[in-house]
């Protein structure tokens, strides 16, 4: 391990940065999930009302900074980010062309801020916590329609877990098609995607049925006898 002498100032800076990252991450992770989701809803609505470029750009910068702090990976992977950057660029150019440069920037900062806020919420909230929120929200309505809140919470939890898997599946299919020399077009990508998805569905259905997930309302955590667990 590389040891090198840091000046006192650099050392303090290092500690502050570490402390800030850890503190911010802890604060965000310990916030209740419902609060964070409500915050996200509020933000996404408030951004539409905000039109001041200075405010929008500062909020966007703050959200990106928070997102960068909360991430566990150090470097921002350009390979993963370029489609997003491309979409943002296209929207910026379109808005600038239609409504002028200022509107273009307004749209761009709104997109960046909202995206960073949503990423921060996703990174600091566990799937279980989100499922709990869904269950709490759905339970009062479950008497109106014959919906089992636990099943609906399971539905949300599954969706969240499957999203990165679908992105990965997309990349896999794309590489497989490119390896065959097939051009990446909608009709070449979607059939393999759907077939893989439907095969995955069968495996998942069997697994969930076997574990009887979402059958009843979440049971309380059973406390085992101390001897059984060590």
């Amino acid at each position: 391990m590389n040891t090198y002498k840091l000046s006192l100032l650099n050392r303090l800076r290092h500690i502050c940065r570490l402390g800030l990252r850890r503190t911010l991450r802890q604060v965000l992770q310990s916030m209740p999930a419902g609060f964070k989701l409500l915050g996200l809803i509020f933000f996404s609505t408030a951004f539409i009302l905000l039109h001041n470029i200075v405010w929008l750009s500062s909020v966007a910068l703050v959200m990106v900074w928070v997102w960068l702090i909360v991430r566990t990976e150090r470097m921002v992977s350009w390979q993963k980010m370029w489609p997003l950057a491309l979409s943002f660029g296209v929207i910026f150019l379109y808005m600038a062309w239609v409504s002028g440069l200022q509107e273009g920037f307004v749209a761009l900062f709104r997109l960046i801020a909202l995206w960073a806020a949503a990423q921060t919420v996703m990174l600091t909230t566990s799937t279980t916590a989100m499922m709990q929120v869904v269950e709490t929200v759905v339970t009062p309505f479950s008497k109106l329609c014959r919906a089992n809140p636990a099943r609906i919470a399971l539905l949300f939890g599954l969706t969240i877990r499957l999203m990165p898997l679908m992105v990965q599946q997309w990349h896999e299919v794309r590489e497989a098609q490119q390896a065959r020399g097939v051009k990446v077009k909608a009709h070449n990508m979607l059939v393999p995607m759907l077939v893989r998805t439907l095969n995955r569905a069968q495996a998942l259905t069997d697994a969930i049925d076997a574990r009887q997930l979402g059958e009843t309302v979440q049971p309380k955590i059973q406390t085992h006898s101390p001897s059984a667990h060590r």
Partner: protein
Amino acid sequence: MTTRTLVLSALFTALLCALAVVPPIPMPLVPVPLTLQTLLVMLAGLVVGPRAAGLAVLIYVVVAAIGFPVLPGARGGLGVLLGPTGGFLVGMIPGAMVVGWLATRAIEGKPWLHIARNTLAAVLGGIVVIYLVGVPWLAIVTGMPFAKAINVVVVFLPGDFIKAVVAAFLAQRVNRFLV
């Protein structure tokens, strides 16, 4: 809700969300890349049926409403849903269900009839229903007269027709794989 419906809905919602961040890819015959979202909604209805497809799109719209950037172009939030294009997104929920109700499984020995019927299903659900919700919404939100709203969206109709035909073809190929 059976487990199979639940799993299929979750998968298709995840697909819809994932395809928001994937770069738009070219469609056959069309020089401009279109969003895959409507195509996927039609496909969902054709392949998994009305309940799972409707549920999938409903959850997708709910997730988008909360603020997650799952709409095409990594957009999201109540603002987009209550804005001018919101109707076209909300209309996808009944649209997917109509496509599912009208879709047919494979017809023995007559693939062309099968594709034709599914194209009709995709057009009725994926275009008619969605535009029936979207165009009035657009007119009301932007305050423009109805005729002008129709003029605005007419541009997208050819692309959507191509999507419906492509969806029917793809669904037929998917069903062939799985049978």
